[in-house]
């Protein structure tokens, strides 16, 4: 049965293919470059891209500025990877970084679940890692020696706000609206606890799945309670929707939150309803350095606008660069120790880390309020 025999040509073809495959698998000669790489991981795709892209650009800006300086001993190459707010993708990115011998350290994550998944990876490879966005206390509670964080935990941000609301605003009853993500649930619980500490009560807690665009039902429910204000623990987009629908339903009460939705985006989404909304904003972050950052950012002409996390990623990158400059890249453990002990003066203020790697910048807040379509400092 000749036609079931393989033709010689086909046999030759397959063998050639196999041979090519084996030959191609021999490694190419190693290349030696006097550059170091700095890694960035964050959500640059998906629903949280708004936060991640702004941070990534802050990171890139810092790297570019270092490369432009004549006195920086290394040429820095930025490696930006996407975690898509997914723990698995994040771990993949982390593994990629720790496997590249030219990557010296990294900064990352907006989502706490992703950070919680990757820090063991960085720790096992002894790669210094600074968190620029995730705010769950659990991240630094583990006290992994290579991990530090430049963002205040949600505890640090909510506590002053709760105190201010109870004492300065003099409110006793509050309604909480938030989302069911780690960010939202963390905020809701923290605020409720701190508010209770100062004698207030939470009359209604409503957590909604991320992606909810209709808050009318819970707002109507709140209308029927004796709440005096609404605390929102979520992010920019939903905050805007909430405020807008709140006005639509005629629910005339203040809206409060932490710096998560301190962003022009909130105002453009909520429109006229944004008037009067208040957020707490870490006070040490209004300084000339930060103005310079924003000016540089604008001059650089990134395609995306800044996000509230641009400054955190910027300082994280700069802290890494400063530590590398002083300690060098040979000893990773020494690098991690140096970062922990560092005193860095940047756009966030003077950053030092506590025993668990959490930034010690005190969160003294100033209250910002929306007036005439702009965020301004609240008049006392």
């Amino acid at each position, binding site marked *: 049965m000749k036609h079931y025999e393989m033709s010689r040509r086909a046999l030759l073809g397959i063998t050639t293919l196999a041979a090519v495959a084996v030959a191609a698998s021999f490694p190419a000669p190693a290349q030696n470059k006097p550059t170091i790489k700095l890694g960035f991981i964050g959500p640059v795709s998906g629903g949280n891209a708004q936060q991640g892209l702004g941070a990534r650009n802050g990171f890139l800006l810092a790297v570019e500025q270092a490369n432009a300086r004549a006195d920086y001993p290394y040429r820095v190459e930025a490696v930006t990877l996407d975690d898509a707010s997914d723990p698995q993708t994040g771990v993949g990115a982390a593994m990629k970084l720790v496997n590249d011998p030219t990557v010296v350290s990294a900064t990352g994550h907006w989502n706490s679940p992703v950070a919680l998944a990757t820090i063991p990876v960085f720790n096992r490879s002894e790669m210094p890692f600074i968190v620029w966005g995730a705010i769950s206390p659990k991240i630094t509670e583990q006290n992994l020696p290579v991990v530090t964080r430049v963002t205040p935990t949600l505890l640090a941000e909510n506590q002053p706000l709760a105190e201010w609301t109870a004492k300065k605003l003099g409110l006793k009853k509050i309604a909480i609206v938030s989302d069911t993500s780690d960010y939202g649930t963390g905020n809701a619980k923290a605020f409720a606890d701190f508010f209770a500490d100062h004698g207030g009560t939470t009359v209604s807690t409503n957590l909604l799945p991320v*992606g909810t665009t209709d808050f*009318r039902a819970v707002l109507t429910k709140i209308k029927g309670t004796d709440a005096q204000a609404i605390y929102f623990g979520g992010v920019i987009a939903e905050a*805007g929707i909430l405020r807008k629908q709140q006005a639509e339903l005629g629910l005339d009460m203040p809206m409060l939150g932490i710096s998560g939705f301190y962003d022009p985006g909130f105002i453009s989404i909520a429109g006229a309803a944004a008037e009067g909304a208040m957020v707490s904003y870490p006070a040490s972050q209004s300084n000339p350095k930060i103005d310079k950052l924003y000016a540089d950012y604008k001059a650089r002409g990134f395609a995306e606008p800044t996000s509230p996390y641009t400054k955190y990623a910027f300082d994280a990158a700069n802290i890494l660069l400063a530590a590398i400059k002083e300690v060098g890249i040979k000893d990773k453990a020494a690098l991690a120790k140096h970062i922990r002990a560092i005193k860095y003066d940047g756009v966030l203020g003077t950053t030092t880390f506590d025993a668990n790697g959490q930034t010690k910048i005190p969160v003294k807040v100033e209250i910002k309020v929306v007036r005439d379509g702009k965020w301004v400092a609240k008049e006392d």
Partner: protein
Amino acid sequence: MDMLLAQHLLNWLVQGSILALVALGFSLLFGVLNVIHFSHGDVSIVGPFVALAVMQYLLVEILPHTWASALILAAAVAIFATGCLGVALDWLVIRRFRTAPAMMALVATVALGAVIRELIRMLYPQGSNPQPFPELMSAQFEIEGLSVPISTLFMFAVSVLMVAGLYVIMHRTPLGMRIRAVAQDRDIARLMGIHPNRIFAATFFIASAVGAIGGIFYASSAGLVRFDFGIQLGLIGFSAAVIGGLGSMHGAIIGSLVLAGIDTLAQATLADGAAYRLVFAFLLVILVLVLRPSGLFGKPVFEKV
């Protein structure tokens, strides 16, 4: 309490109306023509994006002050454009899976949805960010302390109109007859002189256009639109269509009202209801399908041996 109840009912109406428009598209495609089109939600969201783009252009170039008419014009363009997009997608991709196994069409249209989302994100300036969307009509009147936005009544009216309109098209016009003929038996319809591909194109146009209206209402009600809104809108819209019964026009709106009703009820009455709203919604879907496998008003499927 009465005021609150009335307010809840109004909220319910808004949600149900918006959902109905998307559900109608699903019902038409899945139910009548048996086309698997899991990207319908994403196609519907293209509508508000086109509307935004047109409005920026109009406002800058041509009509710098008439907000309202700019919006109407932009919406009209968007609806038409989305309809055409539906036709294009059918012609490019979906048509080729008509005779393929259902699973393949399913995965292909899910992938198609992802492609549409990513294209929106990349082509629209700053597409990753949510885009503010203007309200259709911000006027509202007060009845005894209850604020009734006119937009709510408008959306509800449009939904009912669409349902009625589609019903009329399906059962009273030659086009509708042809659609039903193709749905019944494609080959015999062809023998009767009907071009099945043209009928599919027409149905895709109608379904996508109606979906676009739903998308625009959705964006208007939320005040913003984001490239990934299509996922949830599609899932919930599809669920609403299924609950009502695929293929049934009035089923689409009733299914939407039922789904929106459970959602509002859960959030309004239970202390933790809001966190579990998706759980309630989808448990409802499972329940309805267990009790009535082809939905509330769906035609029971009889298999001819």
